[in-house]
């Protein structure tokens, strides 16, 4: 989504951490692929993070436009 390709170790490090914090959960495997989905808590946390980022980006853009 951001254009950055994560290494396999980094990706599974993130998956393990998110699952430990109960932000994602595993779905039944599809052939060799293991899908995950956001939990209700994960959805709340993601929404809050995105809102913070959105506010941050808007404030930054306002500052830039005022120059």
């Amino acid at each position: 989504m951001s254009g950055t390709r994560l290494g396999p170790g980094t990706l599974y490090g993130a998956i393990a951490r998110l699952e430990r914090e109960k932000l994602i959960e595993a779905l039944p495997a599809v052939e060799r692929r293991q899908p995950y989905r956001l939990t209700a808590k994960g959805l709340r946390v993601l929404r809050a993070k995105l809102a913070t980022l959105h506010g941050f980006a808007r404030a930054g853009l306002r500052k830039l436009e005022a120059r």
Partner: protein
Amino acid sequence: MNARLVSQLVGLYPLEWRTRYGGEFQSFLEDHPSDLGTILNVIGWAMYERVLSLGRFKMDRREHSLALMLYAYLGAIAAGVNFYWTVADTPLAAAMHSRPGLFTSWNLVRGGSLLAAVAAAMVGLPVLVTILRTALSNRRWDVVYRLAVPPCAALVTLAWMAAAASANSSHWVPTPWDVTGDWTAPQNWPPLATRWTLSSVTLVLMMVGTIVSAISVRQAIRRSDLSKHRRLWFTVPSTLLAGSVAVMAFGVLTWGWFVQRYAASDFHLRNGGLFSSTNLFSWGLSSLVFLVATVVAIQGSRTALASEAT
């Protein structure tokens, strides 16, 4: 990525991690192109997970208390040895004979170290016998190997010190505290740079040996069943250990206060070594480690006392 390399890379992760993610991670890696960056990425994260897993052992309170006692005791030994060599063969030792306050605080540390040794033996020996007996009867060689790590680490360090001592004509022994200075170096000792290099090797061997021993013993405890031990076998020694380490910490702190009052010039003496450290620095280091060991020992005692609820 080929299956053999993948299974070697997945094998670097801790068992708990492999149990949960091993299968899917293996499939994921097999579909991934094999390049140096990817391999290094996986190795780096495997090491990270190994470090994380050290703090995630599923121990009950008694085992946890035992591990905390081990850390506190090792810390107290390291701090005590450093404190002893801060004073031994220096003008500070002479000052102690004429100042009762200094002598008393020094004896507090000595008394505390004796009590700590008694506490360590009280908890350590029965636990060691139980772990060994269970491991041998169940043919758990992994536990026996882990218990063999501390004596092996000590032997390696001692063998190195003996070899280095026999290699120089004055039979000077490279002790770990020689890295901080050489204020009592006789003429026939090896040059400062040689002494510093050799004693640095001893220090590294000692530190690595201590860390690896602590991890190995902790893993041996974790792989053993200590549920049949009476609670008293944990609560009494852990309380005694916490008290004795606290006494040692108090002794070292008051010793510093007295020495600052009665022998300040010797206390602030720079020893001329490569680190150019002072006795004050060395005392500060001992005090800090003693204080940390006290906190850990108290935590160990609290955990043992809380074990009744489990």
